[in-house]
């Protein structure tokens, strides 16, 4: 009797290790966290469409501080990059200056059904800012409807979960 109870306890403990599946419904960044001032392969995981509708376009805004962005091409999708001029040129570490950065990356033209999952990747150079959190707001355009993963927690949040949070990346010390 006690052996059976112990076995049951072990099973429950193991299942508890699996944790809640809630984050599986959001667009998230993987892997998190990352190291400061390093090259980082950011992978946006898109686990579903918009209320049953297929995803047609993914747009992500690159936060300030990320100076080098190279998206990964995807068969069936067209990659586009939007640039913006920097107000103050930055030192690029090789003796030159950076005057323009990538502000937005989008993958469009493809079709990701709601019951399938896909990943959209970019290679980034993260800023030397350990301890900070970077937010990558994503707009997911579907055949019918839009999901905007753009909510950022603010200081006065009462503790309720955000419904459509922007994918977040915590930056660790080097």
């Amino acid at each position, binding site marked *: 009797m006690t052996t059976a109870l112990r076995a049951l306890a072990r099973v429950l403990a193991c299942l508890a290790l699996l944790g809640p599946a809630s984050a599986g419904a959001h667009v998230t960044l993987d892997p998190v966290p990352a190291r400061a001032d390093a090259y980082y392969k950011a992978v946006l995981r898109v686990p579903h469409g918009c209320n049953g509708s297929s995803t047609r376009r993914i747009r992500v805004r690159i936060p300030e501080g990320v100076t080098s962005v190279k998206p990964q091409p995807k068969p069936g999708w067209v990659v586009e990059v939007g640039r913006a001029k920097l107000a103050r040129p930055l030192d690029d570490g090789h003796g030159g200056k950076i005057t323009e950065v990538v502000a937005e990356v989008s993958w469009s033209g493809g079709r990701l059904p709601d019951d399938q999952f896909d990943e959209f990747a970019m290679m980034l150079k993260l800023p030397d800012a350990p301890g900070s959190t970077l937010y990558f*707001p994503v707009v997911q355009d579907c055949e019918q409807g839009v999901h*905007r993963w*753009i909510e950022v927690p603010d200081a006065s949040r009462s503790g309720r979960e955000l419904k459509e949070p922007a994918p977040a990346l915590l930056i660790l010390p080097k």
Partner: protein
Amino acid sequence: MGARDGSDDTGLLPVARGQRKLTPCLVIAATAMLACSVAPSAWAHAVMLAATPADGSVLEAAPPAVVIEFNEPVTPIMVELRDASGARLALAGAPEARDGVLRAALPPLAPGPYLLSYRVTSLDSHPVGGSLAFAVGTERMLRPRPGDASFALTAARRAVRALHYGALLVAAGAALFALTAPRAAGGGPLPGSRTLIGGAAAVVALTAVAGIGLQGATLLGPDAIVLGAESWRVGLRSTFGASAVVAVGGAIVLTVAALARTGCRADADGPSGTPDAAPGGRARTGRSLGLGLGALALVGSVLLTGHAAVTAPRLVAQPALALHVLAAAFWAGSLATLILAMRAEPAGAALAAVERFSRLATLAVPALVAGALAWSAIEIREPSNLWRSPYGQLALAKIATLAALLVLAVLNRLCWLPAWRHGDARMGCRLRRSIAAELALLGCAVLLTASLSETPPPQAEAAAGAVRIARSEGAVAQVTVTPARVGPNAIEIALAKPDGTPLDAAAVSIEIDNEAAHIEPLVRRPERVSPGRYQLAGGVIPFPGRWTLTLRARVGDFDVVTLRAEIPIR
């Protein structure tokens, strides 16, 4: 070897004890993970598609159930119904969900606003919640409107309230006067003083209890059964109920303090005449404490309900009213005590008592007037309201009564009392009649007060809403909620950039939440009227309290500005 050290029988590498336990655990975890990965892949939150009754609607008849449709099968976790005071009401049956339709049967609902708050889980076990606010009945929101109730109910309620106020003033005031320890000829307290306090306190308690039922019946509307169970429940839950409970408590303390015989204290003082002629020091302190606390509780009970509870600024309004009531009580209670004393006591003791009162009245009368002036200044903003609004007219009548009272008081103090003191015996009689007249005038003032307490003051008649400014990085919003009362409210938003130019957001959504009540927030979408201006008409806010309005304005594709404002709802 044996299984002691966990080694296996082949004698090869000993397997540590912990490892033997870990392996099955990992196997189970791995199997579970595999099982999860082949589970149905609709890993999306459930979304509410439609609800009946819709959020913010006003219905003519009470709905039998709330039906909410989702886009996928859900399991209910919590479904709560709240009424206009924020208290939870029991549902008529357990909520059930079938094929993504959640149905909660409702109990019979009286007219008024209600909130249904729910949480469900979707297939990915992520909870989804929301709230619906709706109202039953048309204009009958939960505020007493004198025109609606039947005449008999109104008359009964006002009469009970007037009696309650009158008895409250006499009981508290007589207790306060007794605390100043006026002595009778025999050395004890003034005759009848104790009985007066006890009797008045009993009337306070009875009228308080009766008032709860009458108030509840008024709140429910003309169809309510007067003094039925529902009336009592609603009355107890209102602020009037709280006030009545405190009043009954104060009355009990007063009765005990006034009438309790200090009893057989055959102690060091030796046997003395009447049982309470020379009570021991501790007993006297106890009695004084009881009288004082009881009087304060009665005065405090007035502050808990009616206009006193909601008038702003509270830091000024409440002390002003407390001062006014305290002074009025002292006046009424002392006069009542004096009348009884003058009848029974010889002239000398009666004179001493009247003198004592007269001295203290020089403090009480200005306090009464000061409190009244402060209160009137807050409630009757402009002098023109005095003759234009019903509240102002009643206040004018009360002022006239007060003027007559002051005239009598001045005559007492300056003419008749000195004459009596100097030996003119007729003055005693005249003084007694004057005191009786003052008591009658005070009674009139109490009747007027009972009517005043039920009349909305002029500032509430104006479309007073709540206006709040919310700021955040990149935006400023001015939020106006009219009329900031329970029931349908119109919300207007003016959104601007920090430099003042209108901010035309692509989409705006509002979340109205009441954190103290632990409900799911109400989510509403205002309409865009012009650049930077958004409007939401008629949404029902179901119960009073501090509500937080969170505004989410999407400016551009990737940016959401969140602004928060606190709106008090009466």
